[in-house]
């Protein structure tokens, strides 16, 4: 995902001389070529997330198109007030690219985990929140970002993320992508969990359960038309994300359900992190599994939920 980011950014920078890249001393061995090619349109502001975000806002205010790249947890926590006041409040069209969504930096510990960023970013007026599932979606969002004239938060996983989409996709910010049709329920997944969601659907299919699957790359604005249509169509709605179950995709979908005023006959379950810091050290796969977020556990929980209904 990281290499898709820098490659697509270079493409954009070649045709648009306002495009620039700002890093906060991250991305060793990723940006060297970009820096050589675009010289002053690449800046490393050092380990200083407040100034990192403010500088991005100032660049945008004075006509540049800055893509500011940093580790999710540092950028969205230390730089939060700057994101709120300098980017969102003042409507400066900065593209914030966060690497290390969820447990991407699992073994590094909770300082490097990203449990709250989606919740924080989707609360902010003027902010759009996108979590691409794979390099194909990442490329699509990057292409859409160039002319996107508002603050944009793109949350990616780690350096190498597997491809989920086989071929071309039809991508539009705010519109979920149907990846699989079904009849027994629908699973909305976002970002790095879409790949796991595909496995969940395959496991369930072996038990005769057919779930529809959507990649909800955009969490804000949430695709409420799609969610409302799914409420009519499916008896059960599930969400899956590598983020706290409070405040992320699940909450965004839940808000749409509640606002509809017609939740009586809908089964709704959010899969995400519990309200805790990771209690132990572990890899992404280990920690996700410890919360029941591996494909096997999610499939089993969905089966049990549907059985009870």
């Amino acid at each position, binding site marked *: 995902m990281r290499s898709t980011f820098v490659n697509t950014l270079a493409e954009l920078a070649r045709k648009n001389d*306002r495009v*620039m890249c700002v890093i906060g001393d991250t991305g060793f061995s990723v940006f060297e070529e970009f820096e050589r090619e675009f010289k*002053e*349109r690449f*800046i490393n*502001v*050092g380990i*200083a997330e*407040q*100034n990192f*975000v*403010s*500088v*991005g*806002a*100032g*660049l*945008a*205010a*004075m*006509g*540049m198109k*800055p893509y500011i790249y940093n580790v999710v947890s540092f950028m969205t926590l230390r730089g939060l*007030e*700057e994101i709120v*006041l*300098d980017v969102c*409040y*003042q*409507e400066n069209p900065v593209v914030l690219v966060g690497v290390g969504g969820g447990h991407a930096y699992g073994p590094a510990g909770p300082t490097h985990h990203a449990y709250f960023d989606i919740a924080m970013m989707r609360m902010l007026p003027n902010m759009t929140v996108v979590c691409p599932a794979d390099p194909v979606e990442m490329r699509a969002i990057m292409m859409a970002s160039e002319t996107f004239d508002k603050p944009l938060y793109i949350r990616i996983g780690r350096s190498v993320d597997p491809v989920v989409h086989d071929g071309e996709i039809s991508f539009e910010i705010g519109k979920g992508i149907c990846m699989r049709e079904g009849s027994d329920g629908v699973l909305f997944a976002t970002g790095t969990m879409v790949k796991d969601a595909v496995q969940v659907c395959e496991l369930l299919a072996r038990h005769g359960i057919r779930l529809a699957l959507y990649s909800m790359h955009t969490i804000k604005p949430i695709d409420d038309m799609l969610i409302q249509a799914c409420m009519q169509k499916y008896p059960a709605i599930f969400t899956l994300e590598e983020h706290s179950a409070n405040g992320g995709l699940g909450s965004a979908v839940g808000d749409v359900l509640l606002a509809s005023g017609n939740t009586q006959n809908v089964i709704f379950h959010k899969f995400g992190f519990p309200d805790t810091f990771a209690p132990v050290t572990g890899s992404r796969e280990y920690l996700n599994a410890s919360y029941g977020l591996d494909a096997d556990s999610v499939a089993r929980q969905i089966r049990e939920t549907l059985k009870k209904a």
Partner: protein
Amino acid sequence: MEKWNEEVAEFARNVRVDVAKVLNRTNDSHIGGGYSSIDILSVLYKKVLNLDKDKLKDPNRNVFILSKGHIAASFYVTLAHAGLISMEDLEKHTVNGEFYAGHTRKFQTNGVQGVEMSAGSLGHGSGVGAGMAYAKRCQGLDGNVYVLMGDGECNEGSVWESAMFASKFQLSNLVLIVDRNRLQSYGSDKEVMDMGDLGAKFASFGCQVMEIDGHDYNQIYRALMTGTSRNPAKPTVIIANTVKGKGASFMENRLEWHFKSPNEEQLQIILKEQGI
């Protein structure tokens, strides 16, 4: 006194008087830190920035950022006397349903014409200003970026992050002005958080530092003119030694004028002392 000095003095006098009138009406306070900045604002808007309504859209314009956004009333009055907003608009200060908040809000986002950046939380102007200065450099644009900060604001770590950045990238078109009135919110800077020799601190971060009397128009003008978009070099930091409440005898160096606004009787004293 040179003619331009007299003009600036007249401008500053009018601003002080109108600020007192506005704050007497709205009770929005922060007059002390406004009065300590008004001479700097006056030199900027009369002699340095060279702005009019049309120029505000010119990418080659000089940019002024008020980072100590709490002196919004003093800034609005300055903008009115500089012809960037109408004098009638001063009636709208903190009025329900209007755009004239107690802290400045950028024109393009429900704010006031001539306000280039929304402010209110301290320690943001230097970073945004540095980004703007870099963007100007990158696009070969003329014009400098001037940022007015408080000395209490320099308690914020973000100010020092920006100073490092501006120095590393040789932003000679960035001028940070510190209104060194030595009084912050809860006490003097020495009592609250003694920052010692601020000028030496900025110099050690790689900035070109000038320490001036922030009420001396010649010194203010000379210092402000060191900013340049021509050659990459050090950013400029002006430590402007000022008096909080300058221009009203009962306010000068009195902490409470961070919070109070002049009542009718005090307003009359101000008018008298300003020669009105």
